[in-house]
């Protein structure tokens, strides 16, 4: 697989956007995204680049580098390029996070409807979802909300026309070509198929998020709901 050189632009005077795909692209190769997440981690941890950076935001097919001082951009980009080239040879060992999910019932009120919309029964829908291999493409929308890539195209579902007013924390959901987990209670337009009792985001512990960009994720169906 060949990965193109990124398009580089200033989003703000301190924010440099590296785009590795064109603006009309809608699906991201998992390998490319894994490498982006790895580059972000390398830049954050590297002794030359870490101190220059205020934030690095991973998004599908792009990275936003936020500098303390925009004038260090050239220096940072030089290091980024070296790290990017070096990462091509490395095998990426992603962390695997297993998430137990109670599917359906009160925990997954949209399961039956979602299964019907995909032309299958609830049981095979759950099997499809829980046998998939997912990876954390990016986090956003709210703290700890991970957009998981790798969803079986048979399970892709357009978002609800009217978002639910209240989605409980831990809800496992499908929106478009992504699956994800709501870290805290919020309104939401995704289809809720189950719930996990794991804590996805807690600002008072270190690290605050269970999932980090680049992690791989597996769902395991459980039959007893723990609250």
């Amino acid at each position, binding site marked *: 697989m060949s990965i193109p050189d990124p398009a580089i*632009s*200033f*989003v*703000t*005077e*301190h*924010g440099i*956007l590296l*785009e590795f*795909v064109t*603006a*009309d*692209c*809608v699906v*991201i190769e998992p390998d490319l995204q894994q490498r982006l997440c790895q580059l*972000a981690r390398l830049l954050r941890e590297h002794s030359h680049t870490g101190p220059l950076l*205020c*934030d*690095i*935001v*991973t*998004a*599908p*097919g*792009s*990275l*936003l580098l*936020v500098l303390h*001082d*925009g*004038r260090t951009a050239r220096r940072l980009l030089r290091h980024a390029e070296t790290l990017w080239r070096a990462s091509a040879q490395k095998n990426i060992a992603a962390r695997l996070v297993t998430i137990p999910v109670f599917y359906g019932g009160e925990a997954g009120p949209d399961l039956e409807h979602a299964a019907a919309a995909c032309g299958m029964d609830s049981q095979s829908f759950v099997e499809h979802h829980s046998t998939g291999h997912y990876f954390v493409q*990016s*986090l*956003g*929308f*709210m*703290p*700890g*909300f991970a957009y998981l890539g790798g969803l079986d195209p048979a399970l892709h579902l357009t978002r609800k026309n009217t978002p639910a007013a209240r989605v409980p924390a831990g809800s496992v959901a499908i929106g478009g070509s992504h699956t994800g987990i709501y870290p*805290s209670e919020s309104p939401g337009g995704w289809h809720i198929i189950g719930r996990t009792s794991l804590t996805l*985001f807690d*600002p*008072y512990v270190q690290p*605050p*998020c269970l999932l*980090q*960009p680049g992690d791989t994720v597996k769902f395991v169906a459980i039959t007893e709901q723990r609250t």
Partner: protein
Amino acid sequence: MIEVLLGSPMLTIQDTGRTGWRHLGVPRCGMMDELALRQGNLLLGNDEHAAGLEITSAPVLLKFLQDSAIVLMGADMQASILDQTHKNTREQRLLTGFVYQLSAGECLRLNAAKTPGQRAMLMVSGGCDVPLVMGSRSTDLMSGFGGLHGQALRAGDKIPLGQPSHKCIHLKSGVRQHSWNHQLRVLTGPDFTQFDQRSRQALFEKSWMVTAQSNRMGLRLQGDRLQLNQSDNKPSSRGLSIGVLPGLIQVPPDGQPILLAADAQTTGGYPAIASIISTDLWQLAYMTNGTRVRFAEVSLAEAHGLARHQQQQMDRLRDALTLRRAPA
């Protein structure tokens, strides 16, 4: 300790914000006028990043349970100091940018700003000493953490204060609050050329009105409809979200721009037409329903130069205050 006797909506504890966590979806938050916070803190001998109070509406009544020095910045809220009986006014019309001393038991009263919604900042000697959460004391109202119990302050809340610095002495002179003119200097953004010729001109030639649907996450503007080039049949939004920052100007399909502010979320899919330079970002604190805003383009080099100049001014203020505080 400060006791809130009378709170108001959006009365929150804020410092210079939470950085280093945007990759996990955690917004910056922090004082809308960060410059004012830093200036006020310097006058009080506080750490520049110490937390203060952001006040958006009034009346607010705060009782000081210990002797404290304060600095008010931002919009003039016709603040006054009430004595221990809370019946008599000891000092009226406090000036912004000057240090005032309050004795234990005295109250600070803030009344409405002349333009409703314009914010004031209150800095206190020692700073608001609530726990650091993910490296900051700022209140994240959307997610409900930071500040005091992750929420806006209400009557009965008690705000702990840090140890005042020995450098906090009464100063006869103060600092000037930067005056806002609602002229925002911007850099064109990554999607600028995706907009049609008319829209690109309109951004700089027309004025934009701030609407009531504006808050600490973003300011929604109303004006000419900004449109993408129609010729090449582009979709009305980016196919994919990108990382976004406070200051970015996004244009949703209705063509009415949104200025991202301190509490802005971390990723977004709307085309980014331009961004407000960091030097002018503080002005967002004073843009309210009905404010007319204009944009002027600057180059990247100018933006970097202006940011450096602003930092030098802050450094000069710090140096001048350090000199004045040195023992004779």
